[in-house]
């Protein structure tokens, strides 16, 4: 195989994703998506890809990732408002701060597994939520949210409309590529081994705790980037950004799409936001009911999510002799 062919083979998924994502402004309106929703979908693609490194690889279900999303969003907002309207320093500080917080939260919560871990993460996120609502009200705007940011700038480019979309999409493509690289690295294998048999892993000479913390911090980093981009997309931060509802939404996106596949959760994110914003117009207030039914149907009949459905279809219609 030539080097080019090798590169293509190796990065097929990322290139296909890049193609679909970058052409989104052309085909997405045709299916009823309003402009701006595509940007939001891309932001959540970043969030869920990172989340999948934790949930999909190590099997640790966090109900508190809104904390990192929200902390980064607030920090970005405050930075834009009081420091400079350039998004790069704002995003840098925001992501750094949220990632540092995640190291602390991870060290404490990863002492427990299963449901105890989930509840601890939820408790931490709720703690940050109530801090934003009360103690830090002067900075966060409390109930009303953080408003009054200037139009975010990327040096001389106004971050509005198409420029936000392409900025976000390029970040999403890079971070998806990074996630793919991690999956193919020894670290990715060891993270998956944590989910499979942690005791065996420890007895095979691997410090599972450090790898769990690494997965937690990476996923928090992704959540933080998504949170910061949310403010670039729309200069507003609401306290819901930190809420349990936000954490839960990411879990649902991941499960619907297919946990552990990286691409699946992004499908889930796209589906859910499309459903929430476009299809719900026809369904009215009942859309949550329909979403609940879809979620249950997926969990019961296709526990591997959309990706399992796709794999089944592939097996049925495209199976060749060597099973490719």
């Amino acid at each position, binding site marked *: 195989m030539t080097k080019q062919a090798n590169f293509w083979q190796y990065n097929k998924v990322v290139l296909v994703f890049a193609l679909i994502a970058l052409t989104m402004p052309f085909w997405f309106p045709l299916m009823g998506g309003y402009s701006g929703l595509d940007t939001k979908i891309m932001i959540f693609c970043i969030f869920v890809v990172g989340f999948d490194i934790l949930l999909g690889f190590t099997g640790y279900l966090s109900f508190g990732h809104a904390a990192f999303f929200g902390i980064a969003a607030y920090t970005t907002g405050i930075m834009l408002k009081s420091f400079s309207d350039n998004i790069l320093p704002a995003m840098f500080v925001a992501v750094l701060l949220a990632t540092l917080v995640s190291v602390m939260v991870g060290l404490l919560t990863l002492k427990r597994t299963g449901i105890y871990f989930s509840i601890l993460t939820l408790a931490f996120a709720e703690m940050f939520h109530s801090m934003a609502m009360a103690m830090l009200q002067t900075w966060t705007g409390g109930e009303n949210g953080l408003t009054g940011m200037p139009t975010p700038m990327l040096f001389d480019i106004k971050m509005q409309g198409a420029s936000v979309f392409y900025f976000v999409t390029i970040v999403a493509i890079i971070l998806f590529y990074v996630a793919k690289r991690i999956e193919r690295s*020894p670290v990715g294998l060891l993270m*998956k081994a944590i989910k499979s048999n942690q005791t*065996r892993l*420890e*007895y095979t000479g691997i*410090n599972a705790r450090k790898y769990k913390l690494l997965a937690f911090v990476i996923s928090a980093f992704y959540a933080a980037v998504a949170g910061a981009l949310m403010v670039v997309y729309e200069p507003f931060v609401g306290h819901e950004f930190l809420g349990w509802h936000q954490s839960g939404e990411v879990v649902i996106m991941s499960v619907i799409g297919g946990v552990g596949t990286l691409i699946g959760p992004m499908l889930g994110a796209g589906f859910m936001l499309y459903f929430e914003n476009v299809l719900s117009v026809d369904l009215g207030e009942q859309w949550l009911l329909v979403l609940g039914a879809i979620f249950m149907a997926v969990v019961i009949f296709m526990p591997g999510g959309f990706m399992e459905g796709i794999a089944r279809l592939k097996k049925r219609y495209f199976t060749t002799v060597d099973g490719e």
Partner: protein
Amino acid sequence: MAILDIHQVSLSFGGLKALQNVNLKVEKGTTHALIGPNGAGKSTLLNVLTGMLKPDDGSVMFDGKPLLNVNSFDINQLGIAKVFQTPAVFPELTVLQNVTIPVFAARDGSFNLNMFEGRSKQRPLIEFAEQQICELGLENHMHSLASSLSRGDKRRLEMAICLANKPQLLLLDEPTAGMARHETEKTIELLNSMQDGITKVIVEHDMNVVFSLAEKISVLAQGQIIAEGSPDEIKGHPKVIEAYLGEAQV
């Protein structure tokens, strides 16, 4: 030379004295069996060696280094691997991935941030893992999920995992428990054919297995070593018979 030196180790669970002043020396390159009735403390002793349990008293030296208060993964990195009673593998990963893990652990230590290194580009390491798998006769299952293997094959896979980071000491906790006769014989063959130089400590109930493998046997009863010697010495040892069958039948 003793590669493993257990000195005056005691451990209680509440009021139960699981281990009482246990002294045990395992010579390098030998196969040493630990036998004894149920509840004698055999598995407890193995758990002390792997860092899972901390004894109340005593010391354990491995190759001149202390083992107490050392993490399980560091103990493994020092060269001690354990085969569990129920084969412990990574069920959701393929056989090749299962064996790749210890190969990376041997190269990178217990933690390494090589997040962007392509695994498939490490040909020599992957080839070494493949070779280990072939040596244990699993070449036809290279890309099958570990969960799809039979119990006997899972045991082989576990051995391959344990051997892939080249341990000096292999601990085996009842490796033939629940196996059919022919599988037991295969396991004995496998253990006998294992590359030289590896010291083995084996806990086993099946006397047939013990006598076909061990060069030295220690007998534990109620947390104490009551006898020690070659298989022939142990066979007729009055204390051993007493421990297994009770006084009345001596």
